[in-house]
C-alpha cells in the first residue's frame, strides 16, 4: 500500500479510530501487528510470508544468542540469523543480477549455455525490515540489548507498518523502550504500553504527514518530468542542461524520500512514538562526511555501526585499511539501493569522496578551525563544493546505461558553456523549473528557522488549519495523476 493513495488514508484513519475507541492494550497491539501484515499483504500478497519468516527467525535467534553461555554458540546463532536475512535479500533482490553477470562472463569465454533467470518479484520493504532485524540480533550479540520477552513485542517492532516499506530503519534499542512501560505496582514488570492519542502528538503528526505529502506529491512528482526529459536520453544535451537535470533529480529524490519518511515519522508520532529524523537538510552539508550525517541517516548510521566500525575498529591506525573500509561500506550502501552496476558505481564514487576528504583531514587536521572555513563565506564555499560533488553522484544514481552515464558525467565536469538547448529545455519545463526555485527558497527558510513542523504544529488552531488547507489544496490541484508521460494504456 503506497502512502500517497486513498487506500492508505482510509486504512490509517480506521486504525486511529479503532485505537482511540478501544483502549485495551492487547487489542491495540494485535490490531497494529495484524494490520501491518495486512498492509504488506495488500500489495505484496503471498510475499508477506517473508516478513513473517524474518520475524520468527530473528525472534528465536535473538533469544538463543542471549541465552547462549559461550561466545562460539553466540556467534553460531548470530551467523544463522545474518545468513537467513542476507540469504532472503540475496535471492530476491540480487540473484538475477548475479546470474546476468555470470551469463555475460560465460558469453565472453564462449560458454554456450546460459543460466535461466529466476524472475522473482521484489518483495516490498525487504531491504528495510531485514536490516532492521539484523541490527536487533547484532545488538543482542554485542550485549547492548536484551531480547524481546514476547513475540508480540518483537513482531510489532519489525512489522510496524509506517516505517516498514521505506524506512526509517528502526533500532530496537531506541524503539523497544518506547513500546514498553513499567508497571510500578508490580515492581519492574514490563508490559507493552497502552496507546493514547494526545492532542499535541496528533497536531504534530498530522503536520509532519501533510508536509510529507506536500514534498512528495507537489514537488517530487511534478519535478520528475523535467528529470526524465533530460536524463532519458542525455546524448547531445548541453552541460547546463545536465546540471539542471542533476539538481532536479537531487531535489526530486530528496522530496520523494524525505516526504515518505515524514509521513512514517508523523504517523508514528500520532501513536506516541518518537522516530528519529531520516533527513536533516542534506543540501546544506559542508563536506561529504557531513552529507552522510544528513541524508538517509537511518541507513548511513546502520552501515557505520554494523559494517564500517567493525571493519575499521581494530585497524584504524592503518590509513589504507581505513580507506578500504570506507570504500567497502559505501559500495555496500550503493548495492543496497538496487541490483545494478550504476548503484555500485554510485556507492564507489561516494566512497572515493569520503576517502579523499578523510585524507585531507588527516593531512590538514586544523583546517576546520581555520578562520575562513568558520566564516559565512567559508561555509557557503564548503556547501557549494560539496553539493557540486553530491549532485554529480545523482547523475550516476539515475542512469543505468553506461554510455549515457559517461556522457552526462563528462558534460557535468567539463562545461561546454552552451546555452541554446538549455534555454529550450527551460522553456518547455517552466513549471518544474519554477518548483525548483520555490523549493530552494522554502528549503532555505526552513534551514534558517529551525524545526518547521514543530513550529507549524504549535500555531493557533485557525492558523494551523489555514496552513493545512493551503497544503491540501496545492497537493490536490497539482496532483500528477495516474497518467504519466505518454504511456496511456487503458488496458
Amino acid at each position, binding site marked *: 500500500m503506497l502512502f500517497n493513495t486513498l487506500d492508505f488514508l482510509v486504512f490509517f484513519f480506521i486504525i486511529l479510530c479503532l485505537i*482511540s475507541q478501544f483502549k485495551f492494550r492487547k487489542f491495540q497491539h494485535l490490531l497494529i501487528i495484524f494490520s501491518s501484515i495486512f498492509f504488506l499483504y495488500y500489495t505484496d*500478497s503471498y510475499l508477506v510470508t517473508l516478513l513473517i519468516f524474518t520475524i520468527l527467525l530473528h525472534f528465536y535467534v535473538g533469544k538463543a544468542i542471549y541465552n547462549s553461555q559461550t561466545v562460539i554458540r553466540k556467534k553460531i546463532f548470530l551467523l544463522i540469523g545474518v545468513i537467513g536475512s542476507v540469504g532472503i535479500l540475496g535471492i530476491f533482490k540480487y540473484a538475477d543480477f548475479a546470474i546476468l553477470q555470470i551469463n555475460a562472463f560465460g558469453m565472453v569465454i564462449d560458454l554456450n549455455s546460459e543460466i535461466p533467470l529466476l524472475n522473482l518479484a521484489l518483495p516490498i520493504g525487504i531491504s528495510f525490515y531485514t536490516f532492521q532485524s539484523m541490527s536487533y540480533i547484532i545488538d543482542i550479540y554485542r550485549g547492548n540489548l536484551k531480547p524481546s520477552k514476547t513475540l508480540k513485542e518483537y513482531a510489532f517492532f519489525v512489522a510496524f507498518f509506517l516505517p516498514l516499506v521505506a524506512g526509517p530503519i528502526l533500532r530496537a534499542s531506541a524503539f523497544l523502550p518506547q513500546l514498553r512501560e513499567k508497571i510500578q505496582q508490580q515492581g519492574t514488570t514490563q508490559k507493552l504500553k497502552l496507546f493514547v492519542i494526545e492532542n499535541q502528538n496528533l497536531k504534530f503528526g498530522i503536520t509532519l504527514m501533510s508536509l510529507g505529502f506536500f514534498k512528495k506529491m507537489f514537488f517530487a512528482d511534478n519535478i520528475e518530468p523535467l528529470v526524465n526529459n533530460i536524463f532519458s536520453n542525455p546524448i547531445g544535451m548541453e552541460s547546463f542542461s545536465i546540471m539542471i537535470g542533476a539538481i532536479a533529480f537531487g531535489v526530486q529524490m530528496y522530496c520523494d524520500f524525505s516526504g515518505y519518511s515524514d509521513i512514517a515519522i508523523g504517523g508514528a508520532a500520532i501513536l506516541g512514538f518518537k522516530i528519529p529524523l531520516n533527513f536533516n537538510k542534506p543540501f546544506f552539508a559542508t563536506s561529504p562526511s557531513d552529507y552522510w550525517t544528513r541524508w538517509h541517516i537511518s541507513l548511513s548510521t546502520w552501515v557505520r555501526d554494523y559494517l564500517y566500525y567493525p571493519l575499521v575498529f581494530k585497524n584504524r591506525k592503518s590509513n589504507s585499511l581505513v580507506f578500504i573500509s570506507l570504500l567497502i561500506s559505501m559500495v555496500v550502501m550503493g548495492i543496497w539501493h538496487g541490483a545494478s552496476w550504476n548503484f555500485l558505481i554510485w556507492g564507489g564514487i561516494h566512497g572515493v569522496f569520503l576517502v579523499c576528504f578523510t585524507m585531507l583531514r588527516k593531512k590538514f587536521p586544523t583546517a576546520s578551525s581555520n578562520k575562513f572555513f568558520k566564516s559565512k563565506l567559508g561555509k557557503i564555499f564548503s556547501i557549494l563544493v560539496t553539493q557540486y560533488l553530491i549532485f554529480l553522484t545523482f547523475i550516476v544514481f539515475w542512469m543505468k546505461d553506461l554510455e549515457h552515464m559517461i556522457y552526462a558525467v563528462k558534460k557535468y565536469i567539463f562545461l561546454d558553456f552552451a546555452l541554446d538547448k538549455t534555454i529550450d529545455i527551460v522553456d518547455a519545463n517552466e*513549471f518544474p523549473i519554477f518548483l525548483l526555485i520555490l523549493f530552494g527558497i522554502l528549503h532555505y527558510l526552513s534551514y534558517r528557522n529551525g524545526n518547521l513542523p514543530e513550529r507549524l504544529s504549535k500555531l493557533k488552531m485557525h492558523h494551523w488549519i489555514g496552513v493545512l*488547507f493551503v497544503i*491540501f*489544496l496545492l497537493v*490536490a490541484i497539482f496532483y500528477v*495523476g495516474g*497518467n504519466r508521460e505518454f504511456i496511456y494504456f487503458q488496458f
Partner: protein
Amino acid sequence: MNYRILFLILCTIILVSIIFGISMTLYINIYDPNWYGFFSNNNSNENLKKRIFLIGSSSVYPVNSTYVNHQLNLNEINYEIFNLADMSDNPKKRLQSLSNIISNKPDIVIYGLDISNFNVNVEKKSSYDQLLNPKNFFTYQFDDFMKSIQDKIPGSPKDRTVSTLKYILFGPEPHHHPFINFGKTSITPIKELQNFDNEIEFLEYDFSDNNKQIISFKKIINEFKNNEIKLIVFSTPYQKTTANENDVKLFEKMLEAYSKKYDFPIYFLHDKYGEMEIWRDGIHIAINKDTQIYTKDVLKMLIQEAEF
C-alpha cells in the same frame, strides 16, 4: 483523540474537494478561443473566420490543426479549426462542457470517438485471484464510486491546473490545441508494441442504451442537431484494442445505425493504420512529421463533408 481537530480536518478536506472539483472543470467550461488572457499584447477579440471544433480524447490530439488551418488558408476557405481533444475524454465527460462548446458557435464539429469509451470493465476474478490480490478486491468493491469521480476529473489535475492558470493569464496555449500540449513524440516500432501483448485482456463492451456513454453520446448528437451545428463523426485509430472482433463489428454497426438515424456522416479510421509505423503507443499516433497521414485523412473528410 481530539475530535475537534478531526472535525476541522474533515471540513478542510471537504472544502478542498469542492474547490478542486470546480477548478478541474473550470477551463473546459469557460474556454473561449477569443480570450487572449490578462497579460497578452494580442487585442484582437473578433475573429471573422467560421469555426470548426475537433473533439475527442487524447487519440484525437495528434491531428495537426496547424497543418489543417494552413491548408484551409491556402485554399481560401474561411474556416479555422481548433483541436479541443481532452485527456481521458468520453461522451459522458464531454457532455458536461457541451454547452460551452455550443456557446462558442462552431459551424462544424468533428467528433473522434474511441471504441474504448464503451467498455464496461467488468472484471470477473475468481475468489482465489481476489485472495492473491487484495488490492484488486478492495478497488473492485468501490469501482462504481471511483469511476463516477474519475469521470468528473481529468486524468492529470496538475496539467489541468497549469493550463487553466495559463489560459486565464495568457489565453489558450497553444491557440489551436488548448487542452493538451505534448509537443513532439517519437514513433515506437510495432515490434516493440507487440511485446506488451501478454498484458492485454479483452474487456466487456456494451453498445446498448444501458451504457451511460451511449446515452451521453446520443444527447451530444441531439444538442448539436438542435443548435444546427454540422456533426461529422469518425472512429479513432488504434494499434491495439481491448475489444474482440465481435465487439468491433458491433461498434461499427452502432455508429452506422446512429449515422442513419440522426443524419450525420461517419468515417471508420479505427483499423486503417494498424500496420503502419506511425504509433507512439497502442492507442496514440505519434506527433511527428512522419505521421501526417492521420491529419490528412481528417482534412479529407472535412473537405468532403463541409461543402465549403
